[in-house]
Each structure stands twice: as C-alpha cells, then as structure tokens.
C-alpha cells in the first residue's frame, strides 16, 4: 500500500473544526499522525499548494443505472464521473432493474465495485419490495448484505402506514431511512414548478406543496414514532421552514438539497430545456435564496447531486415526454464552491455538507474527517483553478446537464480512496 504525504495544503477538518495549513501522512490506508522526530521515509509527496484538503467527499444520493439501464450509466462510468467531481464515496439508489431490494442485487453492486477498485460504493436498498409501495422489502437482509440506508427514491411511499412501519422496522436494524417526500397525487402529471413560468409555457405544474405535504407527513411520522428520518432533495422555502421547525422541536430529521436547487431557478426552463427538468423541479428565486440560507444556517445537513443520467435521445424530447433528472457528479463541488466564492458558506461548511454530515447520517464509520486514525479518504481541491465545463469533459455515459458551458473556479485535482491516490487530469 502507498505511503502518501500531502504537503502545503490547507486542511479543513469538520471533526475538530480546524482549517490550518498542515501536512497529512497516510500509511496503510489510514490517516496517521507522525511525531516530529520520527523518520518519514518512503512517502510519495503530493504538493497541495493553493489547495484545500477536504475529507473525502461523499455523494449520498446517486443513481447508477446498473443493473438494467447500462446505456444511461454503468457503475464504472458513474464512478469515473464521481472521481472527476472529487468524490471518494458515492451511494447508489435502488431504482435499477431489477430493483435493489435483495441481497442478490446488493451483492452484485458491491462485488462489481470491489472488482473495479475505483472509489467506495455504498448501496441503498429499497423500502418496499420492487419499489411498489405495497409491502416491506427484506430490510434486515439488505442491511446484512451491506446496505447503508433504505429509500424508495424516485417514488414517494404513498401509504403512511407502510412508511411508519418501515421507520420502526428499520430502527431494529439501526438502518437510516431516506425519504423521497412527495404527495404523488398532487404532483399528478406535473412537469415543472407550478407558477408563473409553467403558466407562460403552458406546461403542467408541480405545486411546491406536493413536496411540503410529503415532507410534513414524513416528519410527523418520525416525530410520532421517535425515530430518525432523512429527507432527500428538498427544493422549496416551505420545506426549509418545516424542517427548521421540526429540528427546533427536537425531531430527529436531517435533509439534503442538490446543487441545482441553489444554482438555478425555474427560469432555466424558459426555452423548454429538458436538461433542466428534474423532480422535484427547479423552483422560484425565492426558493433558491431560502435553500442557500438554509445551507448557511445548518437547516440543510448535506449536499447531494441526485445524479440521474438519461441518454441524449431520451432527453431530446418535449418537456412533457422527457424523463426527470440531470447528471451532477462533476458539477456538484464546483457549484458548491461558487457559494463559497460568493461568501454564502465557508469551506468548513462545505466539508460538513459534502463529507462529515453524509458520513454521520449514513453511519459510515471512519469517514468524514482527517483526524488521526480515520480512513484515508481525501479530496484535494485547487481553489485557484479556473475552467469551463464542456460536454467532452463529461465522464458519464449520459450528458443531461444544464451546466454545460458554465465557467467555474476551483476543481478537484486528486482524490485518495482508502490510501490509494487517484490523480484527476
């Protein structure tokens, strides 16, 4: 195993809340404090001048399309995109074909990831069998085979009794539940945010309350049963308010948002751009501001990409017909860094939102910090580098990004995964 010394970087560590220039030694896949006097030989030196050294970034919400839809994305292409985006760990949602609701699919994913030996893959199993919302998946079996959470992401769990019992049952196994919170009937055939833009375009709208009613219900279930819940991809100012109040009242709720919800508003749909169609949809400017504020004040715990690859042919359609979802692994960090440059959030908060908190929510022990003894997952980010995101740079098999052509400042230049250095060119 490689011995690595990262020199001259500013190390941002959320566990100790420190942001200082210091060296990091990695030996045997572990972050090591080495006493000053001790000889330090055999280390491969990595110069991190002008760079921030983050604990390895974790994207807790990714759709890899394998098994079943390998033309959109494979485990390998998804991981390559993740590396390019600076991630050392990604968590894949279960809406594959077959659905990941068993130890067989979980085992398939883990084995494949192991053989690829690129970055860490954590699997998220289904809450309900086949994502059908009618019976519980074998949740204990999923946990035993390695799942770090369960979610029916893509679909809300419509039956409140099933959701409630899923929360209780998974508590038995100490397995986090991630909720795609939405009232499906209120969403109906909606395509983009219901509002001025949907009216102007003549496109069926998705009301913000479709999300907020779902969020409220799931928080009430968690509060009543006294269990934890994680709410995926919140997009509205109303959801922020509901979650803020729930946290104040002592309910154990955490949540994530996605870079597009703090970077774009529904205006991005004005030219019927299907690469700006996702669910939840892009909302109003007021919602965007509320999300940014919630990232700053800690109401939102995590940033996740909700990376959702769809082929160019699929997206080359009307807004009504095109599938929901955009890719995000390569733009997640740069879009988040924009908030830093615009003085909305600090580097420490980025480390919390993209590493420390996801590790904590998913109970990924040994990750999310750069303290002595932690696993050597590291992301090195050059914060001076200016670059443009072009289609040819996309590592995903799918190209459905509304950010193609955008200029960014700051890029990951290397990741270290369990002590293994991967340089990004």
């Amino acid at each position, binding site marked *: 195993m490689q011995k690595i010394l990262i020199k001259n970087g500013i190390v941002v560590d959320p566990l100790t809340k420190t942001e200082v220039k210091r060296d990091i030694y990695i030996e045997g896949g572990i972050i090591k404090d080495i006493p000053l006097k001790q000889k330090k030989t055999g280390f491969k030196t990595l110069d991190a001048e002008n760079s921030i050294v983050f604990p390895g970034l974790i994207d807790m919400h990714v759709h890899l399309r394998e098994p079943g839809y390998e033309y959109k994305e494979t485990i390998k292409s998804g991981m390559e995109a993740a590396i390019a985006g600076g991630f050392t760990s990604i968590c894949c949602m279960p809406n594959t074909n077959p659905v990941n609701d068993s130890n067989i699919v979980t085992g398939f994913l883990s084995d494949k990831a192991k053989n690829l030996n690129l970055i860490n893959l954590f699997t998220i199993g289904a809450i309900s069998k086949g994502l059908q919302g009618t019976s*519980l998946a074998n*949740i204990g079996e999923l946990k035993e085979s390695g799942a770090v959470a369960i979610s029916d992401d893509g679909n809300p769990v419509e039956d409140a009794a099933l959701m409630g019992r899923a929360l209780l*049952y998974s508590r*038995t196994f100490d397995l986090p539940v991630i909720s795609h919170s939405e009232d499906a009937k209120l969403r109906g055939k909606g395509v983009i945010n219901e509002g001025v833009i949907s009216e102007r375009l003549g496109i069926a709208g998705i009301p913000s309350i479709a999300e907020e009613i779902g969020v409220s219900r799931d928080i009430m279930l968690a509060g009543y049963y006294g269990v934890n819940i994680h709410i995926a991809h919140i997009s509205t100012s109303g959801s922020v308010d509901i979650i803020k109040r729930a946290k104040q009242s002592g309910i154990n709720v955490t949540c994530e948002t996605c870079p597009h919800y703090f970077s774009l508003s529904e205006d991005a749909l004005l030219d019927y751009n299907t690469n700006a169609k996702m669910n939840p949809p892009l909302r109003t400017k007021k919602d965007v501001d509320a999300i940014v504020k919630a990232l700053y004040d800690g109401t939102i715990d995590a940033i996740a990409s909700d990376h959702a690859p769809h082929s160019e042919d699929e997206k080359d359609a009307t807004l009504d017909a095109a599938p929901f979802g955009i890719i995000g692994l390569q733009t997640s960090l740069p879009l988040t860094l924009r908030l830093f440059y615009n003085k909305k959030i600090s580097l420490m908060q980025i480390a919390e939102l993209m590493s420390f908190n996801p590790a904590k929510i998913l109970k990924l022990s040994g990750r999310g910090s750069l303290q002595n003894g932690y696993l050597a997952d590291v992301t090195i980010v050059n914060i001076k580098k200016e670059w443009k995101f072009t289609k040819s740079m996309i590592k995903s098999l799918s190209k459905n990004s509304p950010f193609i052509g955008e200029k960014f400042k700051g890029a990951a230049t290397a990741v270290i995964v369990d002590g293994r250095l991967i340089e990004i060119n």
Partner: protein
Amino acid sequence: MSFNKKDLISIKDLSASDINYFIETANEFKKISLKDIKKVPTLRGKTVVNIFYEPSTRTRSSFEIAQKRMSADSLSISVSQSSVTKGESLKDTILNLEAMKPDAFVLRHSESGAAHFVSKWTKSSVINAGDGINEHPTQCLLDIMTVMEEKKEIKSLKVAIIGDIYHSRVARSDIYGFSKLGANVYLYAPHSLLPRLIDIKNVKIAKNMKEALKDADVVIMLRIQKERASYYFIPSIEEYRNFFQLTPELLSMASKRVTVLHPGPVNRDIEIAGSIINSGKTSIFKQVENGVAVRMACLYILMSYQKKNN
C-alpha cells in the same frame, strides 16, 4: 387466603399475593391429574359454559378437562354452530345463557375487552380465556407455575419475551404477571411489533436478541402470524426467520438452566428452531400439563367466591 373478585379478566387485577394463591391452589389440584382416578367432587352441581369465538385446541380442551376432573357440569359452545351465525350479539348470547343459571362462563373472543364486557351482564363468574390482543390470564398463571416449578421463585429472574409482542395477549398478561412478582422482563421484537410506550416497573425493551437472551433464566417465545407481513409489520416470514428465530446458538447465551416456554401453537423453524423443541429441553408440554391444574384452581377459587357472596 382467599380471592375477592367474581371474575378473572386480567392479570392487572391481581396482586402478587393473589397470583401466589392461584399457583399454590393449582399445585394442589395438579395432584388430582396424577391419580389413578382423576376426579374429585369439588364442583358437583356447578354449571360452567365455555364459549369460544375463536379456534382453540389447548385452552379449550384444558378448560374442559379441568371441569370434568372437578365434576362440574359443563357445555362448550362453538360459535360456528350457535346463534351467533344468525347474527345474535355477544350481549344477547350472554343474557340468554345467563337465564339458564350457569355458575361460570369461560370466554375466548377475538375482540379485546370482550370478557370485561360480558362480566357486566352476568352474575356468574367470567374467566377470560383470551380477549383479542389484550390478555390471557390463565396462560400467564400456568407460565408462572411452570417457571416456579423449575426456579422456586420468580423474583430477580431475567425473563425474555421475544416475538410479536404487540399482537400477543399472552405477552401482555406475562409482562404484568412476571413483573409483579419481581422478575426483570426484557422484550425483544422488530420495533414494528413492540409496544411503543411501555411504562411498567422491571420491564425494558432490549436493543437486540443478544441483550434479551444473555443470561436469561426464562425465555418465552411468541408465535408470529403469517398475515403480519400483509400489514407491513414485517417484510416476510423468511426474513423473520432469519433475524428473530430462537436458534440453538442464540439460546446458548442464556443461563445454563434456562426455561424455554411457548404458548403454542408453535411455528416450528419460524420463531423457534424445531431442534430446540425436539431436544426436549423446553417446558412447552409442562406448560400444557400445568394448564389443567391452573384452570382447576381458577374455577375452584371463583366458585368459592360465589359461595361466600351469594
């Protein structure tokens, strides 16, 4: 010592000394079943009506045998062959039977609170032979009797109750009974099958199977019904078997002289490994044996109350 209630509806109504009185009486009556001629004239001239609104093998035959051994006149009404099928209400059924002057009713019903309801409409004694998910007091007494035979005393024993506690009338009665006598009761099940707000002294919810079983003196396994999966309480019977079955390995964590109970009917290799039952190390059949003695004691005690108060 005597008992000053007309009915046996709930273990909650009994004090620790009441429970001991029932067990001591049952110990005496147990001797009758071991004799060559298993009959005493204790309840001669008394009429007992057994009404079973739910199927039952053990409880029903146990009560019937108890009544015969004590020379009571008894009849058993199966709901499927009664006026209940013609739509007669529980209240009317009881009022009509009451007019025939029985001395006691033994009632099994799928609705919680049924025995309590019936007791208001009759001067006869009512023995609850299981009401919905609420209680099964005679099962609790026979469980305590069985444990006492092996451990002498209930106080300070670690009692693990594992399985579908939420839907179990046996669990509810056992929780009250064993905790009243000073046992430390540990409950374990998937959280979807646990009582959420339980506030009884000496009763706690175990974090896992291991915490429940470690050094346990008594393990009470409960039956899981297949239909629980349909209402999302569990994912499937296969998963239940994988994570909540009492296996020989798990049982080896319990005390060396552990008493293993199951109220029956048993789903072998679902909630409990068949090999544990086959090993002969459980007290399941002793429970059934003691059931007759407990039911004899209950009838005797309630009839004594009637004699004193009428």
